[in-house]
């Protein structure tokens, strides 16, 4: 048993900064698709923020695989251990998949993938209505899955912090 008591500094910085970025991203995305006036401004924010999240998620995954996380409390019921493990890997999968699907869907839709004004990313899929027609709804559905997973994660974190008071929240909130 050589496991740390806390997540390492990089993991903590990435967790909290990405929490803000991903929540902002979800609200921007949900709002822009129903906005008659601010779609373009929100989209101009959505694309570079999405790429930033993708890059940070890659760093985060590498850090997570190299550094074992602190253990969960020994008395945590099996069902909660299972829920924690499954939701964490779902969050990793979605924070990597969502930006990639967004990029792929713009490519398949024949759209320029504008990072900032005048700088475009290359297409990662050929122009294809069949692929666009599948990826665009998938991007929306998975955004809602991601949002609800984050809500569950937040609820569980607060449960650990306020009700169980078992130190799990502190593993991510503070260092050694």
């Amino acid at each position, binding site marked *: 048993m050589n496991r740390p008591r806390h997540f390492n500094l990089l993991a903590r910085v990435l967790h909290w900064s990405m929490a803000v970025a991903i929540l902002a991203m979800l*609200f921007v995305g949900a709002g822009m698709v129903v906005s008659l006036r601010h779609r373009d401004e929100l989209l101009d924010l959505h694309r570079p923020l999405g790429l930033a999240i993708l890059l940070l998620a890659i760093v985060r995954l590498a850090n997570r695989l190299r550094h074992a996380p602190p253990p969960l409390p020994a008395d945590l019921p099996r069902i909660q251990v299972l829920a924690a493990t499954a939701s964490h890997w779902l969050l990793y999968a979605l924070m990597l998949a969502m930006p990639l699907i967004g990029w792929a869907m713009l490519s398949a*839709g*024949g759209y*320029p993938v504008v990072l900032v004004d*005048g700088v475009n990313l290359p297409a990662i899929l050929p122009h294809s209505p069949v692929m666009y*027609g599948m990826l*665009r709804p998938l991007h929306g559905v998975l955004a809602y899955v991601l949002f609800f997973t984050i809500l569950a994660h937040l609820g569980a974190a607060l449960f650990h912090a*306020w*009700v169980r008071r078992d130190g799990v929240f502190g593993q991510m909130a503070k260092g050694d």
Partner: protein
Amino acid sequence: MSTPNPRRGSPFLLLPIALIVAVLALLFAWVGGWIGNRNVTPQAMMNTAEASGAPHPGFRRAHSKGICIVGSFAPTPAAQTLSTARVFAQASTPVLGRFSNPGNDPYSPDNKAAVRGMALQLKTDDGQEWRMAMNSFPFFASSTPEGFQAMNAAKLPDPATGKPDPEKMKAVLARYPEIRNFMAWSKDAKTPDSLANTRFNGVNAFRLTDAQGRERAVRWSMRPHTPFVAADPEQLKTADRDYLAQDLDRRLAAGPLQWDMVMQFAAPGDPIEDPSKAWPDTRPETIAGTLTLVRAEPQANGPCRDLNFDPLILPKGIAGTDDPVLHARSAVYSVSFNRREREISQGKAQTGSVR
């Protein structure tokens, strides 16, 4: 940790946790338009467009009938002084575009198309794109998307009578009086007898930024080289339902067709954000380039079918203004594109020719 922990918090603390999660969920639902009363959404505008006729899966919800066009754009030397856009520095830029008829019927008869559209995609060698969607009308029907939506909703048949309710249109005109100008124009305007001699107007205002960072508000138009000839109303009555495409093919077989891109500059005080008000003809103009079309092809499986001619896809050096109709067009076209591409991917697209 296996013995009961006296430090455990009260289970009543689950209440504030549930409250925090619920507030976040409600906020998200509100931002996403699931709850709360919103004025007009792009989805609502698209639903109204769809309700104006029989469904045609896989087709654009407005300007459904169209022809793909291919050619190039060559800028004038003056264009480079107006904007740093790459398209004005490059000798020639390939163009993919689309001519269209109004309405949501992809088989609508050409002789009833009083308004025509020209959409273009200009893609420069650095991958930047300039997409535009122009119309043959000189100004837009309404100052705002809300007015346009109200007008289209009033045109829908009343479920009770099967006909539009004239009282509804009266109420819309009282609230959005600018629509009367458009109706007057529609009544009197002479329809050109060909797409080749039709002038197409951007209608919305944009901003060009030059190398010194100076910004100018402009509206652009495509002015045909082919001389204007008004369609004869008697001949129109018996014209073939696809006569515009046939005429275009005939003319393109004889040689390329050209349009000058005219930039009109706003004077101080001109209504930049109101597309229902044309600027006076006396405003200074500059020709920014020439559009040359060499080929046309049917839109079914044509290269223009799966492009969204979103007028806010602009290269660096050209930006949109705060014109609310411009922003609404961008938002609504996206909904139309998403819906029809979904239908195509599900194999539900309508195929075959006429009806």
